[in-house]
């Protein structure tokens, strides 16, 4: 990875954002690949997805006073640039259209999540309907 580029270089597995931490910035992937993982109720880590060059993440910390919802770490070597909350919000006041790309990206993520939830529901119902005959067979057996 080029050492001359912008941002900071993270090694394979190095954590950029830790779930549960308080954040005051968002990030863009300048080069490389990142993975997003999360744990719920102390159970094992679940991979939520991966991100490539150009992706923006950590934006929820800009708009909400909540802790980071997931951990993001480098998959191989990756270069990531920080975008300061203060710089971003100040510029958005002057030029609201600055948020357009971010809104578009968040809209895309909501669409993806909706599709995933839909697929899981359908999968769950399919499993339930597949289970029923099985239960029924057992009952009848």
């Amino acid at each position, binding site marked *: 990875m080029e050492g*001359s580029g912008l*941002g*900071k270089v993270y090694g394979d597995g190095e954590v950029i954002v830790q779930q549960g931490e308080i954040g005051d910035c968002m990030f863009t992937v*300048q080069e490389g690949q990142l993975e997003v993982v999360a744990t719920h109720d102390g159970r094992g880590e679940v991979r939520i997805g991966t991100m490539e060059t150009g992706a923006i993440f950590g934006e929820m910390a800009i708009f909400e006073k909540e802790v980071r919802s997931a951990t993001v770490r480098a998959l191989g070597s990756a*270069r990531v640039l920080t975008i*300061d909350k203060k710089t971003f919000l100040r510029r958005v006041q002057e030029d609201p259209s*600055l948020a*357009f790309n971010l809104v578009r990206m968040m809209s895309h993520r909501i669409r993806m999540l909706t599709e995933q939830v839909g697929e899981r529901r359908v999968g769950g119902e399919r499993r339930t309907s597949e289970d029923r005959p099985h239960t029924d067979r057992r009952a009848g057996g």
Partner: protein
Amino acid sequence: MTGPLNDTGQAREQASSSGNGAGPLELMDGSRIGVVGGGPAGSFFSFFLLRMAESIGLDVALDVYEPRFFNHRGPAGCNHCGGIISESLVQMLATEGINLPSTVVQQGIDSYMLHTDQGDVSIQAPRDEKRIAAVYRGNGPRESEPTRIAGFDRHLLDLTKTSGGNVVRNMAREITWHGGRPRITSTDGSSQDYDLLVMAAGVNSRALDLFSDASPQFKPPKIQRTFICEFRLGPDTVREWFGTSMHVFLLDIPRLVFAAIIPKGDFVTLCLLGDDLDQELVESFLDSPDVKRCFPGSVVPPLACHCFPHINVEAAVRPYGDRIVWIGDGGVARLYKDGIGSAYRTAKAAAKAAVFHGISTDDFRKHFWPACRSLDIDNSIAKVVFAVTHLIQRSRFLRRGVVRMTAREQQRKGSSNRMSGVLWDTFTGSAPYRDILLRTMNPSFPLTLAWNVIAGNMPFGNARQKGEPSNGG
């Protein structure tokens, strides 16, 4: 740009006939936009206009007149600029989805090294990462190797093309008005009529002079001569002696306003700003011991490439009219800093006005000019900031205090960084000059500075600052 001067009568015709018989003064499906100049202002405008138009389902055609490919080394492909993308602009571009790949960024900058005759002090970037981009506007200086260099202007122009813009590889030779619409005639003799003409030619382009009467009330900006040169040192020497720092100089040299050395791969770029800048001032600067000791063996190497480009130091008058708008440094730019950031702001403001409001004089006055006026007002404050900087340059007594205060802040990480922050933002152009001035008015700032000036000038404290390296490596 070559060609005959525009006929002022045609400009008057345009003024009197705008909107009359030329259709409504707004962009509609099928509208055509001509952009003269494919530097950052022209490319930013094209990118944003096409993106905004697409977002509301507006189908327009856009031509950018730019004869250069920005892939020649030396002057032919160069836009004569220091090539610094400020910290705030890097972040804004990333938010907009415009990333700068490492082929474009010749060196990410993570710190500033302030050189004075009272010592050197390093000011680190706020988040321990490279937040400023040093780029070549063209394809590198004369003598450079062509490999791995991608010019910033070429990168943005490619973005225009992928956004749906058409790049016309011809110079605009003449601008005339026909039926209230602008017509661009190229050097190959072909002519095209447009609904909107965007003048994105910079202050170093002859187009600004040639086409300055394209709108009756437009008066070009006032300009000042600067000096830019490149030294070829090789990557290892650049890394060892200049590191990832931009080196700025606060030296008591008559007429010198600002000087910086920026590392870029095999080369370092020197940028000088000064009053009536001439060869004598350049030589005075290069002869300074504080400059010489930045180079190996305290010897300034021969210049690989140099130029005396102009910068905008006072805004243009009425850079807009019916169906015409001037963006970039042909209109308004931040004083001494962040010229590319100014291009981004004015280009985006013009694109927003054109797509969402209209292309009349009144639309640009209401929706484009405020962005320019904000820069212009900030430039008035900048004059105060630079007057204070000038005072510090002239006074060894004050320089000792500034260096002492900054060095102590940098040693105590996590403590207040009042002076470091002020210097960082003044040198990087990351914050409006108004913010910088307001921060210095916090009562604790002058009090702390006063203490450091006194302590720095005491017999035990006036030695050259020790413990700071003389280079960024």
